[in-house]
């Protein structure tokens, strides 16, 4: 939402350290040019990105404001939201006690492109630019390993290239993949992440080319946004039921910008039906919800707003206080203000876990 900053309050209140697991500094097509071969630069210029949707420009469901961004996030001296480091510092990085912020580039990154070699080239370029164009100018900005996730071998190569480089926080996928993420074709992604010691962050969006619901194409952007939760439910079920977490016990998944109100009911539904249909999935050694609680982390934004605060606390408690990490989604319209987003009744210990404790442990930021 478009929230006016209250600068004075923020300064006087801030003793906290915050690690934000989801921000979106801008990457432009031109930014990637130095890191693309002539062949792929020409390809990008000539054919553009082909991501299984019909529009030449813009999104399948047009956003409700330009760049899906806060109207106050446009830099005063021009440029797109989150394209100007000085203004981003003033409005966000320095305005709050941000210790680290993880960049999740969404576009143009080539993820999900119909041409998987191009997708691999774009992923490489996106990763180079995150370091050269952002991290080196402000080392609080940590990069994501963008990978061409539809191609297991190419993903492995890109993750291997970044392994051991602690400027990269996680391997980044989008939720709308070609097929369900539990399927074997995606197992190389998990193997690569484990070898590199990185969690796998799965950020909502992407274009799978399939209808956003299992009952066809919805009409509206508001439905597209709501359907991210149904998409994440399908992905979590698939990863669990296919035995991904039985096979890859060190795998850690972070669902980003997915909300989490859907999780308890999904866990219960899986458990109940698994008890009755166990013989179909003998590779599972424990209740599905146990895999969920062990292997899935969530980010807060867009945090569900319940009718009564206790309802949100019930939900968070079930997911686990150690599994929830703060995200602002800066500079997007549904930005959650770090100081206003969490329920006021949370005690200081839980607050600290969500603002920075959980993320520091998961991402080994102190190592």
């Amino acid at each position, binding site marked *: *939402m478009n929230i006016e900053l209250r600068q004075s309050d923020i300064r006087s209140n801030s003793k906290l350290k915050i690690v934000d697991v989801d921000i979106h500094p801008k990457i432009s097509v031109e930014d990637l040019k130095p890191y693309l071969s002539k062949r792929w630069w020409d390809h990008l210029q000539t054919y553009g990105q082909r991501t299984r949707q019909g529009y030449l420009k813009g999104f399948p469901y047009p956003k*409700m404001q330009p760049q899906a961004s806060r109207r106050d996030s446009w830099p005063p001296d021009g440029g797109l939201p989150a394209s100007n480091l000085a203004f981003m510092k003033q409005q966000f990085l320095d305005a709050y006690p941000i210790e680290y912020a993880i960049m999740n580039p969404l576009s143009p990154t080539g993820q999900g492109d119909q041409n998987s070699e191009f997708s691999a080239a774009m992923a490489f370029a996106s990763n180079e630019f995150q370091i050269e164009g952002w991290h080196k100018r402000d080392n609080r900005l940590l990069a994501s390993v963008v990978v061409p996730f539809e191609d297991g071998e190419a993903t492995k190569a890109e993750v291997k290239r970044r392994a051991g480089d602690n400027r990269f926080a996680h391997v980044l996928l989008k939720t*709308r*993949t070609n097929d*369900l*993420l*539990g*399927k074997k074709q995606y197992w190389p992604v998990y193997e690569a992440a484990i070898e590199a010691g990185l969690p796998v962050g799965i950020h909502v969006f992407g274009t*799978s080319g*399939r*209808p956003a*619901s*299992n*009952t*066809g*194409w*919805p*009409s*509206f952007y*508001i*439905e597209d*946004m*709501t*359907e991210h*939760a*149904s*998409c994440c*439910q*399908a992905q979590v*079920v*698939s990863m669990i*039921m*296919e035995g991904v977490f039985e096979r890859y016990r060190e795998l850690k998944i972070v669902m980003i910008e997915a*909300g989490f*109100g*859907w*999780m*308890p*009911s*999904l866990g*219960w*539904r*899986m458990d*109940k*039906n*698994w008890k*009755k*249909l166990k013989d*179909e*999935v003998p590779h599972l050694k424990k209740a599905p919800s146990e895999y969920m609680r062990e292997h899935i982390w969530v980010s807060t934004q*867009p945090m*569900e*707003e*319940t*009718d009564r605060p206790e*309802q*949100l606390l*019930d939900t968070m408690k079930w997911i686990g206080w150690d599994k929830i990490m703060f995200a602002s989604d800066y500079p997007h*319209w*549904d930005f959650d203000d770090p100081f206003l987003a969490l329920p006021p009744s949370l005690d200081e210990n839980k607050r600290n876990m969500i603002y920075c404790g959980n993320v520091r442990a998961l991402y080994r930021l102190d190592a």
Partner: protein
Amino acid sequence: MPASHSAIDCDVHPAVPNLEALLPHFDDYWRNSIDERGIPGFETNTYPPRAPLSVRDDWRGKNGGAAADLTQLTSQVLDRLGAGKAVLNCLYGAHLPYSEDMGVAVARAVNNYVAKEWLDRDPRLRASIVVPTQNIEYCVDEVNRVAADKRFVQIMLVTNQETPLGRRHWWPLFAAAEKHDLPIGLHPGSAYRQAMTSLGWPTYYVEDYVAYAQAFQSQLGSLICEGAFAKFPKLKIVLLESGVTWLPGFLWRLSKFWRGVRAEVPWVDRPPGEIVRSNVRLTIQPFDAPDDPEITEQMVDHLDSDDILLYASDFPHWQFDGDDALPRGLPESLKKKILVDNPRATYPRLQEDAR
């Protein structure tokens, strides 16, 4: 706890024993076609007959399959579990044929079969009208044809359709539903026009079944966002066998976005939760939660309405063991509402009956 004799079981499934039982209800053309083409029947793959969810062990018929026998159904649902009335939702595959004409033929046959072989034989039974969702005009025709029989109290659709239900081309069906005082019941099932998830076809049956909860979410989102309830304020949607507990989390999310981007859907002029509490009902089985009274209480609190839940056994599907279909931990005052008052308020044709 057997329910009171006035309890109404809102989700019970009679089986079609075999194609022969339906044949008298097709016209000559279709009877011949079925024979000439060697069509083996129109049963759905949604509930594989031998799968443990499809029929509860102690409810299996002599052949090991679902109850295709009137006495078997009524002795369990009405006599043993203790309901005074039951709504039959026949899950035979009228929604499956790609041919619109074949869809009409199967839907008509099913409705006629249910009236003759079930409703005529036990006055405690009511039923849902099955419609050929291949073509909305034909759906409306079938509703208009069958609605004269007041023992049909609802229109039933499967959850996974070719297009979301709020889309405007569905609206003539909602007009017909309003005209005849018929709620529209959505039941797990697929026309198999879309993959079982928005990311493709899962490997395991358990995933297919779990994914119906997502279809309910999508359909409810579509109905709300497209403005179906603004256009048809009397429209009642009953979510049958939905799992129930996904609803609060879904509404929190949708409501948050509605507050942010409601300019896109200006006809949605009140919060989604308010719309759901006035126009949407859910049957109680399955109730996706652990068998824990404390969690049941929490979920009832999150649902935030005493009017929204309807009693159902979901016979013969397995959803619970023993004879008590109500989850432990429901407040006593709510039980009577779920068993009797809420179903009667939801289905106007049941009220007429009571006079």
